[in-house]
């Protein structure tokens, strides 16, 4: 198989997998109380999975939408570093940069930087981005419509779904001892401060703590 075809096939595979994951986003968002239009707007406009889950997770747990928005933006900070890695490969400017920026996420970055040939890297970025954007939004719509039809999403256990979604997003990042220790410490800290601050604020306290740890304390 020529490398171009293999890349497009992989891109489609990633798109289909995330489409399935978008179904759960659409369901969780609707169960959290966001409207169909708000749910779809998040997938079209925000288009970065963990941030979307964070915003609807905080709102669903009774937190302020602004605490959710802050958590979403903090989770999106890693995309800036992805953009940094991709800028020399993509070499986009003007309108193409405006569009390409929207596609700078975990999956497109992983697909693009895995290629030795820059032309193949660019093909991987754009094909993954297009497949993902299409199927991510389609999946969101399907999940939101299906949940919209339910009278009480709690009967399906949908209130237990967000932690599982966050766990599934977290797991691939825990392959070493330090991230595992950080994850456990973060969860304990968030639970410890939870009774004393408004909903959603524990996330911001954890974000400050990990930033201080990374920027100030850690050696090496």
């Amino acid at each position: 198989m020529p490398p171009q075809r293999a890349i497009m096939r992989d891109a489609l595979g990633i798109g289909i997998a995330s489409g399935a994951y978008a179904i759960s986003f659409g369901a969780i968002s609707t169960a959290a109380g966001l409207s169909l239009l708000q749910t779809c707007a998040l997938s079209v406009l925000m288009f970065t999975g963990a941030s979307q889950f964070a915003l609807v997770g905080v709102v669903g747990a009774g937190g302020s939408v602004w605490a959710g928005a802050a958590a979403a933006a903090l989770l999106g900070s890693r995309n800036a570093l992805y953009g940094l890695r991709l800028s020399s490969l993509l070499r986009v400017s003007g309108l193409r940069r405006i569009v390409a920026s929207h596609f700078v996420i975990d999956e497109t970055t992983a697909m693009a930087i895995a290629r030795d040939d820059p032309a193949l890297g660019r093909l991987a970025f754009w094909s993954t981005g297009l497949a993902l954007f299409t199927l991510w939004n389609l999946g969101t719509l399907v999940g939101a419509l299906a949940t919209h039809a339910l009278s009480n999403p709690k009967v399906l256990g949908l209130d237990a779904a967000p932690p599982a979604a966050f766990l599934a997003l977290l797991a691939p990042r825990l392959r070493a001892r330090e991230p595992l220790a950080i994850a456990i410490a973060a969860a304990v800290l968030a639970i410890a401060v939870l009774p004393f601050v408004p909903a959603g604020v524990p996330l911001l306290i954890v974000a400050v703590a990990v930033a201080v740890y990374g920027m100030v304390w850690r050696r090496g």
Partner: protein
Amino acid sequence: MIWAGVLVASAACYALKLAGLSLPQAWLGNPRLQRTVPLIPIALLAALVGTQTFSTGQHLVVDVRAAALVVAVIAVMLRAPFLLVVAAAAATAALLRFL
């Protein structure tokens, strides 16, 4: 109010992506920043798992969601696909409430 949060957060997330492609390498190339930013999702996602499993509003509670999380951990360790992890957790909670 939700709309405002949705739009502002979306704009912030887009601005971060655009900044990565646009800003000079040196601005974001600081080694400490490079090491710290990947830790943020780890900490935040773990905090979300903890708080959304063990709280209702500002109260700490242990209910069927804890059992659902145990099932999700097992599913993740078995390398189940994303949708299956979420569905298994939801089904666990639904089943335990039904019993």
